[in-house]
């Protein structure tokens, strides 16, 4: 079997195991949290009678283990169950039906941000390594470190203030629905995408720069320079191929963040993504939705890390032949 394929299969198998552990952990933590869905929804208006009626209707009066195994059995059959919200009516809201549009929005924003941020960060990082310690290097470091050190909601407010209120170039609310066209969606998601770009560029840029500078001291780089290769070609052709592995890891890490960690930006711009859904579901103890979100988040991490490893292996032939 091809070593890459073998690695992929091994890692996917381990990934499934991880997902299972995650589901147990999430379920257990939700069980440990005080209160339940009925109390969360009824708030001050919860009386013992209504809570009991609620729990009975949702089947929450059964033991936790029974509920967990029922849930996982259904998941193995591709059924993520129904949201507790709206239960009792004849129109049930399936978890996949609730999550799908929001997941699409989240991926849309993540991909849009990635398309801007990743090339930008790589370009800035390579240039910074090339012109190390120059005025450009210092300036780009200072700017990106400032944007990463500023809380994302504050960057969002600043962008909103200048681009939505003063200049009126972009809308301050990023409300989208399934009837929004792709162009309109991109326009509405512009400010959140720029905010996130500012947040993640520094990490990737600094990593690219550091990985390249690390390699500049290696003997083969000295050899390249002695042969008369220009500094630019030395970096792009000799150093960069060896630097892909750490860069890919940090890019994967940031992409995962774009999917699972942007709830603050979603709230500020009123963008209907999956982060807000997860937070709401946790605070209302809406177990089926929380579980599905958690599995999606875990799967995102697993898949992105796997792709980063594959990139490392492919770009470094030594890893293809482990001893």
């Amino acid at each position, binding site marked *: 079997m091809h070593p890459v394929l073998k690695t992929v299969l091994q890692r996917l198998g381990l990934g499934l195991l991880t997902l299972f552990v995650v589901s147990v952990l999430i379920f257990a933590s939700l069980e440990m949290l005080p209160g339940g869905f009925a109390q*969360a929804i009824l708030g001050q208006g919860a*009386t013992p009678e209504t809570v009991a*009626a609620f729990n009975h209707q949702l089947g929450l009066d059964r033991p936790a283990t029974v509920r967990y195994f029922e849930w996982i059995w259904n998941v193995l059959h591709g059924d993520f169950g129904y949201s507790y919200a709206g239960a*009792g009516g004849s129109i049930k809201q399936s978890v996949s039906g609730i999550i799908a549009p929001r997941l699409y929005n989240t991926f849309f924003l993540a991909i849009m941000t990635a398309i801007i941020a990743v090339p930008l960060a790589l370009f800035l990082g390579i240039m910074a390594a090339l012109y190390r310690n120059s005025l450009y290097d210092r300036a780009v470091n200072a700017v990106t470190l400032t944007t990463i050190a500023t809380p994302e*909601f504050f960057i969002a407010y600043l962008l909103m203030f200048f681009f939505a209120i003063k200049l009126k170039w972009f809308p*301050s609310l990023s409300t989208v629905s399934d009837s929004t066209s792709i162009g309109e969606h991109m326009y509405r998601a512009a400010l959140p995408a720029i905010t996130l770009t500012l947040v993640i560029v520094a990490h990737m840029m600094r990593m690219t720069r550091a990985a390249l500078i690390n390699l500049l001291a290696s003997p083969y780089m000295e050899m390249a320079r002695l042969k008369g290769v220009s500094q630019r070609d030395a970096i792009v052709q000799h150093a960069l191929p060896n630097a892909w592995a750490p860069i890919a890891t940090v890019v994967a890490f940031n992409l995962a963040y774009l999917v699972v960690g942007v709830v603050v930006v979603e709230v500020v711009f*009123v963008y209907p993504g999956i982060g*807000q859904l997860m937070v709401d579901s946790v605070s*209302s103890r809406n177990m089926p939705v929380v579980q599905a979100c958690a599995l999606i988040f875990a799967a995102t991490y697993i898949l992105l890390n796997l792709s980063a490893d594959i990139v490392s292996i492919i770009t470094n032939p030594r890893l293809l032949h482990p001893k």
Partner: protein
Amino acid sequence: MDEIKHKLNAALGQAVRGRVTRREFTQLALASGVSLAAANSMFTKAWADEPKKGGNFKVGVGHGATTDSMDPGLYPDQFTGTALWGTLANSLTEIDADGNVVGDVAESFEASDGAKKWVFKVRNGITFHNGKTVTADDVIASLQHHLGENSKSAAKSLLKEVASMKADGPNTVVFELTGGNADFPYTVSDYHMPIMPKKDDGSVDWESGIRTGAYKLEKFEPGVQASFTKNENYYKPGKGWFDTVQFLSIKDVAARTNALLSGEIQYMDRCDLKTLDQLKSNPDITVSEITGYGHYIYVMNVTQKPFDDVNVRTAIKYSMPREDILATVFLGHGTVGNDNPIAPTVKFAVDPQPKHTYDPAKAKEYLKKAGLDSLSFDLSVADAAFAGAVDSAILWKEKAKAAGIDINVIKEPDDGYWDNVWLKKPFVASYWSGRPTVDWMMTTAYAADAAWNDTFWKNPRFNELLVAARSETDEAKRAAMYAEMQQILHDDGGLVNMLFNSYVEAHAKNLGHGKVAANWQLDGMRVAERWWFTS
């Protein structure tokens, strides 16, 4: 002439806020030598320009969750209340801008048998959004939704006094109550009880969103938005002016403000008090402030030591610096409370004497009466009770030291506050959004057998009066009973009512409206029905 003009303008300003009636204004104008016709036109112009049809009205609301549902029994807050009730639906009755109960789906209502039997006449010929005529059966099915063993409705306890509901012909509903209740029409105005169409199996259709209101449901995305189009067949004259209405859930207050400033919405609730002056200075924005029924309170369990001694309770009441808290934590947006949960604008409200103000000397005196030199207790707070609960408690702690009272402020987690702290810990922060009648408020939170009696206070005289006043139809006698009850609660109860909070909201200048209701935020949650664009 200039002086007269100035005074008339001031009177007009008062008129718009509902403090001067048209008649009073006209008399003032006539006395100043203005002709009757001119006075009338001045009044009408000030009372915002004539309502105009049309426009797309967008509202940003600081509530809304992805778990919101179409089930009215589970409407948790302003988002579902304003969008899915005030815009989409009608209850049997409604509370008007002056706080009186008037018919809505019911054309009229009448009590007999000591307010034990209530007859509601359903308005003739009104229809649901699907064209079906509203009948007594729909009304009964809608209310039945909240009753019965399997009901999980938040309104279940409100309707527990209903013994039976019967239709008497297509347009009459007869309610038999277990005891007399002169305020029953107020109860059925609640936003959990919209009238919905009955299904063939006898249950009610709450899922489809077919109701009777001024707007039809276009789309509801829980936690995101709800959009509506005008109902051309709406039965209420002079209501429902907009072509379309959209409610957006914008929980972040800065985002809400920005959306208003950039013109994406025309109305926002819950303004940020800290930046209110900047908002007020914007020429395109009007900020409105209404003191409603809602109040922020601290409640002690009167069955536990040391709160079981009335002198200790009174000492604690005198140790709270309400004026300071209002000025610093709430920046003046509210009215100080006097340990009476009934807002001054509610019918039969009184202001019990002596007023409980910050008076460390008096507090010490009461402590001495209880046989104590100093007092120390835990106070459990979280901002989940109300925004500012923690800051207020800390300010209280500092000021109470002067009275020899040591308050140990315990900051509890927001998450699960209502399950683990409220009704469990001996002294906690809480709030009520208030109720439109004395009876309703007292029955909800201060009656001996109330599920939410968060002070565990059981005063025999109070409870006797509560039951007696409920079926008393003589207004003067009733007023006297309610005054006594409020006095007893003020003197003896475990409630420290810190303040009545204001609804601070902002809207675009080109919106017109009549007198704004105080019973809920967003003009009694019916802003979409009552307001219009002037240009």
